[in-house]
């Protein structure tokens, strides 16, 4: 079974989502962007990404609602990394049972590391037990 390796950036600030797709694109990933949770669900329906980078505060459908809906529909089909300006990013991540978190403002290397390690973890999880 092959593992989805595409990335989905869910972020309402176009400057930030543009930057994320540039930096992750530079690193060789295929990146799609959604400006809120509702659009993100549509993108997921088109194609399941490997990792979702999720902003929490967004109009229309925020990160909490998206995560709940996503888990209900697809379970743990993709890894979720919370990207938040909240004071305790780790706690926000725990609330929605995300796999990782990034605190704004972040280091670019931290974004790349987080994505790489989540993809590696999901690949390892998908490997059939020997």
């Amino acid at each position, binding site marked *: 079974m092959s593992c989805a390796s595409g990335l989905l950036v869910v972020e309402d*600030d176009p400057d*930030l989502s543009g*930057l994320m797709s540039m930096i992750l694109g530079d690193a060789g990933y295929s990146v799609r962007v959604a400006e809120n949770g509702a659009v993100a669900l549509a993108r997921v329906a088109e194609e399941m990404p490997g990792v979702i980078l999720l902003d929490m505060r967004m109009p229309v459908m925020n990160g909490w609602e998206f995560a709940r809906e996503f888990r209900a529909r697809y379970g743990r089909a993709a890894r979720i990394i919370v990207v938040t*300006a909240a004071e*305790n990013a780790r706690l926000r991540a725990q609330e929605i049972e995300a796999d990782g978190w990034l605190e704004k*403002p*972040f280091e670019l290397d931290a974004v790349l590391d987080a994505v790489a390690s989540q993809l590696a973890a999901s690949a390892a999880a998908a490997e059939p037990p020997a």
Partner: protein
Amino acid sequence: MEIVRAPNMLAPEQPGGGDAERGEIVRLGRRTALRIVVVYLLVGAAWVLFSDRVLATIVSDPAARDRLQTVKGASYVLATGALLYWLIVRARSHLAASELERRAVLDSIVDAIVVVDPSGTVVDLNAAAARLAGLSQRNGRGLPLAELLARGRFKHLDGRPLAVEDSATSRALQGETVGGFECTVQGPDGSTVFTHVSASPVYVQSGAAPHRAVAVIRDVTDVRRFEVAREEFLSTAAHELKTPLAVTKAYAQLMKRRGQGDPAALSVIERQTDRLARIVQQLLEVSRFRSGRGGELRRERFDLGDVADDVAQRMRRLTVDPVRVERSDAILVLADPDRIAQVMVNLVENAIRFSPLGGEVAIAVRRRATEAVVSVRDHGVGIPPERQDRVFERFYRAHAGTSQDYGGLGLGLDVSREIVARHGGRMWFESEPGQGSTFSFSLPIAEETAA
């Protein structure tokens, strides 16, 4: 300044503090009664002694005198009867007036007041309390406290119904003075009312068990609503302020990575956005600590030395001289690693900021009895002795207005000390002008049991 919970100034100092007053009231009552009786005896004696003699001189006929004697006796009884009646009515109406006044005062108090006897029966409640429980005052008296709690749907903040034995009032009956007990009540219109309850034992005799317990229940719904709104505001502010910083910083990093622009200039942009982000963080924390809530602590077991290494690593970009870490064996603490790292970052930043000529900054992690002590040492400008007392004050900047004013908001140490205090530790410093400063904080060491 240690954060010590001051004793409640309003709490009764001593059970039965009113003993002397009670004695005074009883004595005053006795004296008044005695005065009335003495006057009565004098008037009576005068009447007995003189009335017959006066009658004898005025009326000479013995038969007429006898008749008059009877009339005199009857009128004496009537007059004293009337006098007694008047005295009793007067005393009663005084009592009734003071009772009415006391009632009116109690009923005019905005907070709900409930008085309970040792059997847990409500003996008195004011109008506000009756409204809160949805009863008439008359029906409220004699009701078991449990029934009152059930009628008012008293609940803990997490929604569990409040059991009688957990109520502040029951605890007060055990002799405890309870302040700041929080619970919710369902208001008469069905809405949830947030309340703050204080309860205290009532003693009429010192040394005895509480005679009553009195509870004051205050509606704090507005305060609560304001707190929720503020939390919401702080979280919006964090988002609105940090997102642009995140974008700016990331673009600077992107340009550097792609080899566009002057890398030195881009590093400055990065450094300055980091600085702004930290100030935003500090401001948010200060406003939160002010509210006494101060965000959540996520405690886990970790080695303080690892966090020190990590901080030293992160600080590398700020200074030419590396930040040295002195650590020996693992020192485990049960604390919030992000917060503790934040404290170290604050201290190291200060150390670097106040070392304009450079010089080594070291983080030392060591064990002292049951405490872990982290010290951040610099060889910078030091703090003048006359300013040392105020170093931990919020907004105080020891170097403000001097040639050594290197900026900052004066919040870092305040926030740091607050974080350390919330972990059960202390913070202190030693400083010698021209020699440098050492800021230290302690944390309780976690027992080395299985994690």
